[in-house]
C-alpha cells in the first residue's frame, strides 16, 4: 500500500510546495512511491484520511487553528514543511508589533475598520498572532528552512516508505560550510548566524556569497549569549542584533508578549 500523502497550506509564500514540484528529477519517482491525495497547488482532489500530512505556513487565526486540528486528526504523521510552519518565519516578526498597528500600517485606519464591520467576513480578519504549527498540534517531523530543502524532503519520503525514521542531525550550518570549504562569513567582515542555526541546507547562502540569517531555526544547544556577545564585538548595536535575530524570528522566542 502506497502511503497517502497530503499537502496543506496556511500563511506562507507557498515556496515550499513549489519546492516539492521543483524536485523534477525525482517527482515522477516519488509519485511511484506515494499517493498524493491533496495538493491544492497542483491538484483538485481532496481526501478524508492520509498517512502523512505536510503543513506549509504559519497559523494566524482561529479558523486556521481549527482547520489545522482537523488535519492532525485525519493524519498519522504530520510534517511541518518549511520555516513558516516550523518557526513562524519572517511574518512572526509582526508578533512584536501590536495587531491593531499591523492592520493600520497595511490597510489604513479607516479601511480596516470598515472591512471588519461585516460580520460574515470577520473571521478572515481575526488575526491573533503568528504561530508555528507545533505550538498548536504535535509535529512528527520538521523540514526546516525557507524554503525547505528538497534533499531533506526526499530523505523523509524515503524513510517513511521504507518503514524507517528520518534523521535530521542537530548540527550547526558551520559543518556544511566546512564541507564546502567556504570562507567563513566572519572572515569576509560579515556577521553570520550559522553557528547557532540548524544545518541541513548545505550552507547554501554562505556558499553563494551571503551569510546565514537563521531561517532554519536556532539549535537546541545554541550558545545564544556567546553569539550575542560576538555580534557586539563585531560592532552591531543591540538594536541591530535584535533586528537580525528577528529577521526569520529564529533567535527570538515565538509567542512572546507583544510589545509596543
Amino acid at each position, binding site marked *: 500500500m502506497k502511503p497517502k500523502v497530503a499537502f496543506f497550506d496556511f500563511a506562507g509564500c507557498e515556496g515550499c510546495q513549489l519546492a516539492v514540484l521543483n524536485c523534477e528529477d525525482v517527482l515522477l519517482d516519488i509519485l511511484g512511491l506515494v499517493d498524493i491525495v491533496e495538493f491544492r497547488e497542483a491538484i483538485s482532489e481532496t481526501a478524508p484520511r492520509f498517512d502523512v500530512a505536510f503543513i506549509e505556513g504559519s497559523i494566524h487565526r482561529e479558523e486556521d487553528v481549527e482547520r489545522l486540528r482537523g488535519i492532525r486528526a485525519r493524519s498519522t504523521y504530520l510534517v511541518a514543511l518549511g520555516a513558516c510552519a516550523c518557526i513562524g518565519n519572517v511574518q512572526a516578526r509582526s508578533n512584536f508589533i501590536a495587531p491593531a498597528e499591523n492592520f493600520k500600517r497595511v490597510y489604513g485606519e479607516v479601511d480596516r475598520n470598515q472591512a471588519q464591520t461585516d460580520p460574515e467576513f470577520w473571521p478572515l480578519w481575526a488575526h491573533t498572532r503568528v504561530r508555528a504549527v507545533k505550538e498548536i498540534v504535535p509535529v512528527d517531523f520538521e523540514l526546516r528552512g525557507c524554503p525547505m530543502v528538497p534533499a531533506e524532503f526526499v530523505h523523509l519520503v524515503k524513510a517513511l516508505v521504507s*518503514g*524507517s525514521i*528520518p534523521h535530521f542531525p542537530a548540527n550547526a550550518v558551520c559543518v556544511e560550510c566546512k564541507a564546502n570549504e567556504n570562507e567563513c562569513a566572519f572572515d569576509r567582515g560579515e556577521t553570520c548566524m550559522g553557528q547557532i542555526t540548524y544545518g541541513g541546507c548545505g550552507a547554501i547562502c554562505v556558499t553563494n556569497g551571503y551569510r546565514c540569517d537563521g531561517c532554519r531555526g536556532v539549535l537546541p544547544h545554541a550558545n545564544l549569549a556567546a553569539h550575542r556577545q560576538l555580534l557586539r564585538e563585531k560592532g552591531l548595536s543591540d538594536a541591530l542584533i535584535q533586528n537580525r535575530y528577528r529577521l526569520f524570528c529564529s533567535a527570538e522566542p515565538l509567542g512572546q508578549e507583544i510589545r509596543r
Partner: protein
Amino acid sequence: MNVTASASDTTLDKNLYLPRMATILAVEEMTAREKFFRVELSQPLGHRPGQFVMLSRLGIGEAPISVSCGPRDDTILEMVVRNAGSLTQVFHGLQPGQKVGVRGPFGSGFDLADLYDKDIVFIAGGLGLAPLRSLIQPVLAQPDRFGTVTIISGCRTPAEELYRADLQSWSHKVKVIRLVDKTANLPWDGQVGLVTAPIAQLDLDPGRTVVALCGPPVMYKFVLMELDARRIPHSQIFVDLERRMKCGVGKCGHCQINHVYCCQEGPVYRFDHIEHLPEALQ
C-alpha cells in the same frame, strides 16, 4: 612525467566496509520491543563470546548488535534486536528469507580459558542477557571445566523478560535468579527487586569467582558497589559497555572511552583495565 596509478595499497587484503549477506531463518517476537533473529551466514562466523557484528539492511543503515549465541561450527548466528530507532525498526519488519548484511565479528569478547575452573556469576539487566547468552551457552555446555555457575537476570516487568525458555531450562542445571522491578499485575514466578539484591545472599568465594556483567549504564555503579562489598577483585569482573559505533574497527571515533576504542579493546572489558577511565562508567 606521468605516473601511472597503482590499483591499491599493498596493506589491503580485504575491504573492511563490505558486508557479507546473510539470510534470515527465523524471527521471533520476544517482547513488545525485542525480536530474536536467527540468520544463516555464508561461512561460520568464528566468533568468541561477547563479540558483536555490524548488522545492516542495505539502503537503511548499519548498527552494532551483539552475538547472542555461543561459538559454533555451523553458519548460524543468533541475535536479539531491540526496536530503538530508524534502523532497528526496519529490522523488526523483516521476515524469514530476507537478507541482512553482516560484518565482523568485532571486539575483544571473553576468553573462555580465563574462566576455566572459576565460579561464574552472570548478571544481566534487560537486553544485557543477549550478549551474555553467548557466554552462558558454552559455559553450560562444558560444566566440568567451570565451577559453580549462577545467573542473575533482571528486567523491568514480566512482559520484558528475554529468553524465558532458556532461563527455565538453564535453571535445571545451574542456579538461576530471575527478577523484575515490578510485576505490573502480571503473573510472575521469579523474584521482585533489583539485580543488586541477590548478590548479598550469594555464597561467593572472592578467590575463585568471576563475574560477567552486562546491562544498561545505570546498573553498573550499583552492582559494582555490591561486588566490592563481597570483595570480588576487579580483575575478576568483566563488564560489557555500549557506545555509538559506525565502523566497528577503531576508525570512526564514536566509541572512544578516553583513549580506548570500545569496538576494539571492548565491548567486554576486565573491570580493572578500565576503572581508572573517567568516561567508562558515566
